[in-house]
């Protein structure tokens, strides 16, 4: 069992938790992920590491409440325990030698982008952050990003906070002005990453994306997390859990990844509704 030692609601649907998991905390690096199960019969869900404290043996996760499992997880409080918590899985984001990087985060993906921005800042790298949200009420981690960024753009789709527009707006402006980066790293919804890749492509700047597909074991056994890379006219199957989760954005087949991501949509919607109803009955 893995105890929750800190919990904060970052916005109405996004929650931060620090989990006591010394083995995972000792090894975790930005870009890696963990798999957890809330209870003894629960499903396994992957969550990318949002931070770690090696001294206190805790790992930070930030999750959006999108289904039954995250709903159940959000109902736990400090002092409660999670049944299973395993990791760190996948490979760490490769940051060696980078001097000037643009980090583009979208929505809850910003939680995963933050430790990368922090690591780069610690390394003395020049960090430009672009973080985007649907609207003001769901903005998260603004101060944390500001603290580690040499330049920052906060975007909202509806213009209710920061600048109006999506994350590609400032990215395109910078590219138009001839701005160069060693790398663009983007983490967020698949459709956003697809457009960030498209915007970056003409510049030839390497563009890394963080994939978060459906997984079961997370250790290279089930193959559910497979995705297609297009390289030199060939299609290559890769497994996000052991080969990723980071990939060269220019090679990823986003359309396929988006369609695979919807495989269990109907089931997930029904399961989420069911769990919400159970919690409502409990309250009554």
């Amino acid at each position, binding site marked *: 069992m893995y105890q929750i030692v800190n919990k904060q609601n970052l916005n109405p649907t996004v929650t931060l938790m620090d989990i006591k998991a010394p083995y995972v905390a000792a090894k975790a690096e930005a870009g890696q992920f963990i798999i957890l199960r809330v209870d003894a019969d629960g499903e396994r869900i992957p969550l990318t590491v949002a931070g770690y404290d090696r001294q206190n043996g805790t790992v930070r996760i930030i999750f959006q409440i999108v289904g039954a499992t995250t709903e159940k997880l959000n109902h736990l409080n400090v002092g409660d325990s999670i049944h299973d918590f395993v990791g760190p*899985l996948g490979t760490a984001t490769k940051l060696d030698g980078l001097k000037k990087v643009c980090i583009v985060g979208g929505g809850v993906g910003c939680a995963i982008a933050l430790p990368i921005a922090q690591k780069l800042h610690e390394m003395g790298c020049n960090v430009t952050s672009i973080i985007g949200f649907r609207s003001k009420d769901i903005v998260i981690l603004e101060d944390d990003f500001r603290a580690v960024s040499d330049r920052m753009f906060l975007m909202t789709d509806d213009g209710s906070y920061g600048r109006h527009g999506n994350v590609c707006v400032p990215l395109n402006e910078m590219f138009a002005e001839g701005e160069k980066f060693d790398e663009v790293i983007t983490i967020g919804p698949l459709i956003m990453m697809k457009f960030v890749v498209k915007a970056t492509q003409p510049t030839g700047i390497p563009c890394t994306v963080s994939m978060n597909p459906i997984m079961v074991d997370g250790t290279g056994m*089930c193959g559910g997390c497979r995705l297609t890379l297009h390289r030199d006219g060939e299609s290559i199957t890769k497994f996000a859990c052991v080969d990723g989760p980071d990939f060269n954005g220019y090679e990823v087949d986003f359309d396929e990844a988006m369609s695979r991501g919807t495989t269990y949509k109907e089931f997930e919607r029904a399961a989420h509704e069911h769990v919400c109803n159970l919690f409502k009955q409990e309250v009554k």
Partner: protein
Amino acid sequence: MPNMNPKKNPMPSQEPDVRNHNFKEVALGYTEEIALDEAARCLNCKNMPCVNGCPVNIHIPEFIAKIREMDFEGAYQVISRDSSLPAVCGRVCPQETQCESKCVRGIKGEPVGIGRLERFVADWHNAHSTTPSDIPASNGHKVAIVGSGPSGLTCAGDLARKGYKVSVFEALHTAGGVLVYGIPEFRLPKAIVQKEIDNLSALGVDVETNMVIGKTLTIDELFDMGYEAVFIGSGAGLPMFMNIPGENLKGVYSANEFLTRINLMKAYREDSDTPIMHGKHVAVVGGGNVAMDAARCARRLGAEVKIVYRRSESELPARREEVEHAKEEGIEFCLLTTPLSIKGDDKFSVCAMNCQKMELGEPDASGRRRPIPVEGSEYDIDVDCVIMALGTSPNPLIKSTTKGLEVNRKGGIIVEEATGKTSRDAVYAGGDAVTGAATVISAMGAGKTAAKAIDEYLANK
């Protein structure tokens, strides 16, 4: 006088039309009466050919003699001298190619039902025995086992009985490896696997779940923690695909994923949090035991199921018994057929599979006749789910984080056959991590071999 009936006692089973709607165990097991009748068929041969057919050399005539004496606990004790998992082996060993293939009674008739008797004895023990195992006196040495599948559990059990302090590290949340995530409940009830693991815990074996060796801890760190030897039984790795168009459509599973969702995550139960697609028309590609397991699971979830295999029936690698069970349950076999592509609808979901007929040519390197495509024989079958059961390649996690651990061209860990020793001192390996996909009992044999070698190594250190 031995029972000279040329036929072995049939296994009482659930009726096919009943069992293909539930996940309860198919084979119900011999009753005491049947077991005694079957045990009387053993001639108690002096040279015991059956023992040589068993990868772990169980003293078969001796345990059968105990059954005849109605000393069932005594029979269990005979088996457990050599096997850590009798209730498992009695169910999933391919006895027809091992012990039973050597049985003298098989020359004129059917061999003694050794596997069924083993299962009877193990189930009797689990139901009746209350005597707690004695924890062996400690010899002060610590050994780490990576993976809690059949090879790891066997190695752990053998070492614990010799007084070693054994820790088993399991990557998943439940111990048992393929016995839990791969083999379905209706062939091997999970409560039986748990019972075998509890028996090991009673011997003092410590099982730690959620520990991915190669990630959470490395092999070198295990030595730093005071373990003096390590056995790697990390099992199968990434699933293989055919590299044909459409394999990443929604509705295409690897058998590993399909079975893990159903067996480990209990997706067949309505109250499970883990989803699984309930296809109406399912094609399973492959002809091994895993293909049969996947097909029979899909059938139980309500599908019409076809097995698509490129050679003919006699080349099917699955156990005869599994093929018969699958047929009885209404699974159709499309033999001499190979998929060319999988077709999707406008929602990227599987809607058909394009196949080609094959014919058999000359034998290839494996000794089996090579399938050759029949030109112009392409046709579509309507399916909404495809399961690829084509085998696996070894898991890269340990190899990539362990310096000096040599692997072969396919990624399997290289070991000395007689000892299981790897290219690293004090590191041993066995099971699918070495051989690629094989059987439970051969993995157990490898675990046993390594336990003996580890004991010799640490005793002489």
